[in-house]
């Protein structure tokens, strides 16, 4: 393919901030030069190269601190107005390797609640930045509300069970929870961002260092995709965390969801766009019915079109969400009911779009889509994994309930 994806997946140019284009281009460059153009090598020596390329992105290019205020070494992108730019950056990362994006997105989304205007929490940033934004990659995993267990009554976040709890005393906070399933690499995490319920059953967020006493990690879990990071269940046996490590601000959980939806959407769409490039080249050279060019066959062309359409629409929707977040000031911020609802809604639909693109395209590619050598199946597994994590539990029903609650003023669901 001898053109840039942006020449075909068009969008109104004014929808990305002019001054962000340079950084987006740098990340795109990294993706293409370091990984996309060297897929085979990257596949063969995945473990080593993953770590190497990731460090380059996080530190040489500086992605690690993207969310931080300038004061803490960030770019000053710590306002919701940067949402379209953030989306675009994570899309470029997703083209190269979804796991790199996934880990960075979780870190950014969790930190956003204390680093973003107007909710900057300097006392906590002062604690966390030196420890978790050093020269070696530090990983964050988030424990979101999710499935509950039969006959165990739990506090709820919009229907989802909050399985961890926190007791606050003057001395500090104590986090308790058993066999919690993180989103992200629980086995690799240096810091856990834990949604927990306080005494009043209200959700709040505790940051828990992985070396805290009483924190136990379970055995590594074999998962469908995102295989460069390893997940494990985590238990908190009366884990003490210092006072500033607990964030009790209203809507902070909603904000994490909003950012996760936006950034995960970017990653999955990036992976899907890279898939489009692979598919373009594949379809260009195949024949069908004893000689016709496969891509000129109308049925194959219509499948090719499906792929392009799913991605194009989802990308426009993602940018729409980014602008809604960017202009969320008069709605009550990124965690307000309307913005939260749209983030869940569009986030879920971006994942579906990206996955549909892969699913349809793979049907065309047959075994080439299924063999590891074409790198397609990795994108497919990675996107599915991101989607399942984002779903949390019950497929998109919790999101549907969020939508219905907002649009129809429900009280009970």
């Amino acid at each position, binding site marked *: 393919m001898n053109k840039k994806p942006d020449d075909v997946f068009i969008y109104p140019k004014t929808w990305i901030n002019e001054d962000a284009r340079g950084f987006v281009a740098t990340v795109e460059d990294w993706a293409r030069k370091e990984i996309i153009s060297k897929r085979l090598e990257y596949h063969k020596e995945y473990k080593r190269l993953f770590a190497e390329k990731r460090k380059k992105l996080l530190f040489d290019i500086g992605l690690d601190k993207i969310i931080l205020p300038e004061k803490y070494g960030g770019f000053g992108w710590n306002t919701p107005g940067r949402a379209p730019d953030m989306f675009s950056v994570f899309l470029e990362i997703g083209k190269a390797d979804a796991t790199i994006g996934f880990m960075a997105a979780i870190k950014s989304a969790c930190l956003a609640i204390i680093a973003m205007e107007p909710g900057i929490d300097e006392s906590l940033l002062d604690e966390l930045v030196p420890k978790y934004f050093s020269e070696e990659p530090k990983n964050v995993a988030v424990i979101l509300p999710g499935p509950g267990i039969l006959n165990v009554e739990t506090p709820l976040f919009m229907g989802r069970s909050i399985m961890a709890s926190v007791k606050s005393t003057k001395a500090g906070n104590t986090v308790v929870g058993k066999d919690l399933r993180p989103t992200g690499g629980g086995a690799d995490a240096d810091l856990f961002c834990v949604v927990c319920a306080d005494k009043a059953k209200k959700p709040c967020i505790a940051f828990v260092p992985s070396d805290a006493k009483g924190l136990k990690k379970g055995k590594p879990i074999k998962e*469908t995709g995102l295989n460069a990071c390893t997940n494990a269940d985590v238990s908190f046996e009366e884990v003490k965390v210092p006072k500033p490590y607990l964030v009790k601000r209203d809507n902070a959980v909603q904000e994490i969801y909003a950012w996760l939806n936006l950034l995960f959407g970017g990653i999955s769409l990036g992976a899907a766009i890279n898939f489009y490039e692979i598919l373009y080249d594949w379809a260009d050279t195949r024949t*069908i019915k004893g000689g016709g060019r496969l891509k000129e066959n109308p049925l194959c062309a219509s499948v090719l079109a499906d792929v392009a359409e799913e991605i194009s629409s989802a990308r426009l929707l993602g940018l729409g969400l980014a602008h809604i977040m960017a202009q969320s000031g008069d709605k009550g911020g990124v965690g307000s009911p309307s913005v939260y609802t749209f983030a869940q809604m569009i986030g879920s639909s971006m994942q579906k779009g990206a996955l549909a693109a892969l*699913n349809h395209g*793979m049907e065309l590619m047959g075994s080439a889509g299924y063999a590891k050598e074409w790198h397609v199946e990795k994108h497919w597994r990675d996107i599915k994994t991101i989607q399942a994590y984002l779903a949390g539990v*019950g*497929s998109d029903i919790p999101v549907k309930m969020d939508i219905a609650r907002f649009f129809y003023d429900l009280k009970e669901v």
Partner: protein
Amino acid sequence: MNSFDEFSRPEEYVSPGIKHFRMVLRNLIEKEVMPLRRRFDEDWDEHKLIEPLFDRIMGNKGLGTQKSLFPEEVGGWGLGHSDHLGGFAYAMAEEVGRADTGFAVAFLVTLWPLLTILVEPHVNWRLAREFAPMFCNSDKAVFAAMCMTEPQGGADIENLELLKGKTIRTTARLEGNEWVINGHKLWPTNTGGVADLMAVPCTTKPGSDNPDDYALIFVPADTKGVTQGRPYEKAGMAADKNSDIWFEDVRVPSWYRAHGPGTDAKVFMKFIIPLGNVGSMGMLVGAMLNLYERLYEFVSTRTYNNRPLKENDAIAGLIGKIAGDIDVCRVIGHEASMIIDRRNKPYGKPLDSPEVIGKTRNMKKFIADTAVEDFGLAMDVLGVYGVDRDWDIEKHWRDIKMIQLWMGGKQLCQMEATRYFYNCKTL
């Protein structure tokens, strides 16, 4: 509903023999295969765990299914002259697919090429006798492979009705009383060193679209000139090995051709496509039955809004759709197997008729698309646990995608069905 086995079956179609056989097979699968299946993925290259299990299903110290098609006269079960061939194939695929569809395909593909020489009225007695000892007298699993796909053409080989073998580049030349075969095939199940016997669609006249020039030739894997590549790394289906395979001046006796001009194409159309479809459907439905079992457990023990997932009306709608689809697919799978088993009845149709090929293609596509959708949905219902191998659904999700793609893929299914339904000329 008390068990996955209550999903609808056309009761009138199910023979007592099949019922009994299912129970024997199910016992073995549940006791020996299911406990190990979560470790198959890491065993994809070596098959250390997998190989002994195949011996149990296929070899003489186990169930001995690999001899099932051979006539009783040569030591087999005589399934080749049974009126329940389709029903048996479907039942075996469903039972084994419930545990692992990769495992099921490796086992069933062994029977696949043998169909062309062991089923009435196309029994090739000379070959039946010649190959019987290999399959009927072995304690170990013995595999066969059906080497169709070639590098250039995607689904073109399977598209026999339209292209009539015109695009086959693997050649067979008769020299004296030997066939000399040259060519390159991709992806056959049970390659990568597994199969002992291969069936190879060749052309005796490159570029010809005369069915007489289509030759289906059996090649023992250890024949000189046969080279198998390393097994491919794939997204799933670890129990099924695939590789490239090259034939360089491979020589086999002239009677290793399945039948002869015309008949080879005919038996390919009759058995390979329709029974391939029925087997695929069985595997898919088997996997779906297991999906139901695992999902049932999850939705009964995990909660949303502090109530079991299954008691939430909206989630009930989703999981009800999944179960409802399984119910529909199982009926359709049985109907497809009955389309096969009606072949000798006055109201039945020949297996190589456009009707049988078109309808079974469509049914396979229907079930495959439904399964792909429902497995994806089920993973999402499990959410953070959906991607965890311990819940088994994600493995099936990776595996069954392959079933949707194989045998010429979804598009060929669509075309062959549409050709029949609308009498198209050029599809």
